[in-house]
């Protein structure tokens, strides 16, 4: 049964904007309008403040954990136009890199799949998307997609690392030839898919369905099936599920998950990509699941933080 295993009092002095656990689910990072990022050890239901990271000069919008194979690394982005990459070394957290290449609030950060190395995508209200890649030795390579979204970019989300079907066997010793892709959403009401070709980022697809600012995009994790899935949510209250069965990635079809009464701020996929968590301005969290016949149904409602995820219908349980 679904159970609350921990309730963390963050003691932030202002509203929280993001909370995320690391790869193993042992640490929690939170960020807030009080300009701080906090890291808690939440093993075994406890809460130990590991670090209180100060460095941003404005509200911090989002945090992102890197894959642990690169160490304990956390990225945060803020209204102050900065992206800060924090790293734990010998038990203390410190700034590893500070990126100041945006001209307006940075709204979203997302680490790429570990297969690509340490690569971070950042979406900003100046309309640009930056891709920050570690080249080792504390050096970072910056690529910037200018005017990715007119008016502003609100969200970025990486596609899982999938090898293109035509290249099955890679010559050993060489880097596998991944096609790097990510999705972004912006104030032009569009979801865009970007693809790296010959080291350059190019707009691959433009997905049009929302009638207002796109607030978040989430590329579903892959379990090895050929279908790609993206969830997007918007100020217009709609959540769309975009799917693409075409191996070339050219034909995307949208399906309306639900129209909410207020803005939808965030979408998040479960690790197997079959449950979507949706949250928005109505202060509610709902979980959605696709049934075997392809229909999306709400399986629970976390209302105003009062109760646990409730009312999982009998049918869904049997499916388990």
């Amino acid at each position, binding site marked *: 049964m679904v159970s609350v295993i921990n*309730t963390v009092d963050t003691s932030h002095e202002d*509203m929280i904007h993001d909370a995320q656990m690391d790869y193993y689910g042992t640490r929690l990072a939170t960020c807030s309008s*009080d300009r701080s990022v906090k890291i808690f050890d939440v093993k075994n239901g406890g809460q130990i403040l590991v670090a209180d990271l100060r460095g941003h000069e404005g509200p911090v919008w989002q945090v992102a954990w890197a894959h642990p194979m690169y160490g304990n690394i956390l990225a945060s982005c803020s209204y102050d136009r900065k992206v800060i990459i924090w790293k734990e070394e010998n038990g203390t957290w410190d700034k590893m890199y500070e990126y100041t290449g945006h001209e307006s609030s940075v709204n979203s950060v997302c680490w790429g799949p570990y297969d690509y190395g340490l690569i971070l995508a950042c979406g900003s209200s100046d309309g640009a998307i930056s891709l920050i890649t570690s080249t080792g030795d504390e050096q970072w390579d910056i690529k910037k997609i200018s005017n990715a979204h007119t008016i502003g970019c609100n969200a970025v989300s990486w596609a899982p690392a999938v090898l293109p079907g035509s290249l099955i066997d890679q010559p*050993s010793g060489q880097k596998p030839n991944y096609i790097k892709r990510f999705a972004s959403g912006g104030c032009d009401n569009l979801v865009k898919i970007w693809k790296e070709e010959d080291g350059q980022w190019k707009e691959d697809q433009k997905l049009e369905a929302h009638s207002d600012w796109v607030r978040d995009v989430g590329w579903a994790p892959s*379990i090895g099936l050929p279908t790609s899935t993206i969830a997007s949510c918007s100020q217009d209250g709609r959540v769309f599920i975009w799917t693409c069965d075409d191996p070339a990635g050219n034909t995307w079809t949208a399906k309306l998950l639900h129209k909410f*009464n207020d*803005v939808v*701020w*965030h979408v998040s996929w479960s690790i197997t990509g079959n449950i979507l968590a949706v949250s928005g301005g109505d202060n509610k969290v709902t979980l959605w699941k696709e049934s075997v016949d392809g229909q999306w149904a709400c399986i629970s409602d976390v209302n105003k933080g009062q109760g646990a995820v409730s009312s999982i219908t009998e049918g869904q349980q049997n499916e388990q």
Partner: protein
Amino acid sequence: MAARWSSENVVVEFRDAQATAMSVDCLGRHAVLSGRRFLYVVNLEMPSEAPRKIGRQSKWDVGTVQWNPHRTEAHLFAASSNQRVDLYVWQDGCGEAHTSLLGHTRVISDLDWSWFEPEFLVTSSVDTYIYIWDTRDTRKPTVALSAVAGASQVKWNRRNQYCLASSHDGDVRIWDKRKPNTAVEYVAAHLSKIHGLDWHPDNEYILATSSQDNSVRFWDYRQPRKYLNILSCQVPVWKARYTPFSNGLVTVMVPQLRRENSLLLWSTLDLNSPVHAFVGHDDVVLEFQWRPQKEGSKDCQLVTWSRDQTLRIWRVDPQLQKLCASDIVEELMDGLTLATDSEKTLRSQDSEAPLSPSLNADESHDQQEGVQSSLSTSSRHDAPGLPQTLQQEFSLVNLQIRNVNVEMDAVNRSCFVSAHCGANRVRLVVKFPAQYPNNAAPSFQFVSPTTISSSMKTKIQKILTDTSLQKVKRNQNCLEPCVRQLVSCLESDIVSASEDGTNPYILTNPVTPALPAFPRVTNTYGSYQDANIPFPRTSGARFCGTGFLVYFTRPMTMHRTAPPTEPTPRSLSALSAYHSGVMTPMKMRSESQATLRLYSGSPTRTDKEQVSISSFYYKERKSRRWKGKREGTDCSNRPIKLAGKVIIQEVSCLLPVHKALGETYVLNVNDIQDTCQKNAAAALAIGRRDLAKVWALASAATSLDLSPDSEPDADTPWARHPFGRHLLETLLDHYSHMSDVQSLAMLCSVFRGQGSPHDSFTLYGHQNPRSSVLALHHLRYPSYTSSSVTSGSCSSTSDSTTTTWNMIGRDSEHIPPWGESSPDDYRYGNQVYTDPREREKEQHDMNKRLLDPANTLQFDDFKKCYGEILHRWGLKEKRAEVLKFVSCPPEPHKGIEFGVYCCHCRSQARGTQCAVCKRFTFQCAICHVAVRGSSNFCLSCGHGGHTSHMMEWFRSQEVCPAGCGCHCLLQSTF
């Protein structure tokens, strides 16, 4: 009697018109009324005549109709209908639609003809675009302004042909049509929807907005953060428009409970009470427009159209016009008596004609006093409209021009203008006469240290005089235009001088254009500049790890200010409402001063910094729940929890994968049957009965009785049976739909182990299936097998491109007989089979597998994905077991590569020869010959040499052959 002098109006009823919009042409001859079925053109000279009709076929009402304001095009009018605009020509008593403008994708909200170019028309729409059309080319708009938000109003500036304003909910954007990408200025004007927008007829920078929030506000868009003045009404204001005579304003209210259908005339110099009410309409006034003055007449006429289906024409005589004006004291005094007169009259008529709800008996007395006091002080009064006094001009003037300094002295009515450009210095004294700017130009005089030539002085003097005269003739201020003229004149002089090649200053002092007209204030959080920054999330949920859901919500104690029916704002600029008292929401007005201070504060720096997203939520809670308790106490004394708790939930029961199964599942290739049975028991133990059955089926399908014959000519393999490959595919398909990657990966692994043809391992002799499978993968992908970790960590060759592992790995790809061993190789089809038997055999190999070899890549993905999940669970050994069954290489191991430091010059070297000293980089500790080829090092002491020599040495010795005393065998595992 007030009512008398304005009630001389014309009333004409058009019972069937059902018109939604009205417009008066620029000649004052016609008014067009737009009904759904007909457009009615009314002759304003003889309004009672039957109107001429123009038929129209549309199921949509006309949204807006407007005559072209240019005399040359006075026969033309435009009417919007849903998504399109129709252009009509009215000639010789009949009219017709001659063309349509199509482009908008949603309903058009407003249209406006340009005041400068007769062909240009701007339209705004809910579809978020503002289009500027050239009626000579109607195929598509010439300019598209993308506003992102739908616009409700759009209006051309009356003084600047490039400038226009649009309203979007509570915001106003100012556009320069030459810069269509983005608005040049944002004004967060109101908290509720703006219904009406009107530019000042004489001042380029001033506009009036009327809104649902019960106010009309006056703005200088160069100062977007603070309105110039506010007119507070008790009801939402539908339209507020400037009058053609100075300082007047006419408003129409949105009637709510009371049937308030009067138009009110205000003086913009005194917004406490209306100057006059036009009483008469029985229903909502839909439109009102001024009829152009007739030649020789001093009267103005206001034409109104109401839902009561009457058209009325109201005469506004010069006396009433003067009520709005302020320039001459005598007139003011006249106006004062008149005004009081009219107030009394209006009051006395209360019983007959309903007046503005504010004009009840008690209030009108106050207002009367207000009128008097404000009028008596009006010479010092801040004018919301055109700045009339010198002081106002000085305070409003925008002189942020490079190299120019202006010292203004309003008391002495003079100012000093110093400018330097290149080597030239100019200092000017400008003196303003008392009547300025009413047709009285200031004087300009050069004073020292002016350095320019006398001919230049004459030239500049002339330009300045011309410019100022031009302006003051229209009673306009001239300081700013004059200073700009001065600068451009000086600059052009320098440019022309430099063109002659005589001016050496051109390089050091390049001509810089004047700063942009909209100097930006420094950025503060939540200001209007944040219009494109999304409103922050205050709740969110994220799946983390494998089975956790982390979520946070807004604390229960914090409520939204806005009613729940109103959606959360889109952009952070909504917070600008909390920056200063200026923008205090209406509802706040009624609250106590203490609470007001907390939320709205004065716009000092510290207060600005305190503006946070929580301000948006904070308030309602206070006003609702805490007001009583908090009375008299300073709110900041009490800490308020603004951050909610972050809740971590275990939701793995919702997921198709189970950690318990991950722990108990086994993969024993030696005994597939046993594996299946054990896994069935494990599935049963956690209640997955479906999986228990699947494992039972798997057990049956992998039964040894069914193992395929190696000879193609024997029986059809079991895989071809419906319960063979087909059954398995159906199962995989099912679990794919459920995203159960655990079952998928396990099934694929088991059947891959089972499906491996025995004869492919002949190269290894008679090994049992398990070890052969292991050996195969072991050789090709050493990094994933657990045994490989212990092997070979120290072996390397100095030629870094060939390692022993890779050698075997590569061989496996290139030696043809191995082709049978790896399913991957079949898919390449790169081997050419000369022998038909060979081909048949290959076909048979494909057929006898239960897992379709064509999908191997996908099966590998299942396993890798499951491996990743096992990794997150911390089950690394289980992960390694699963990944052994991956046929395709995972990411190549790029762990340790041994670097070599040259033993002579200590520089890092690649290959056998040092790039720096050109000698061999590394000598064998035994034979002292440079090593190339296979070599071994001790990781501890760094000594080593040819592999054969090392093997030989350490067979009998324990310490380093170099004599360093290192116990190499213990220090590093060979």
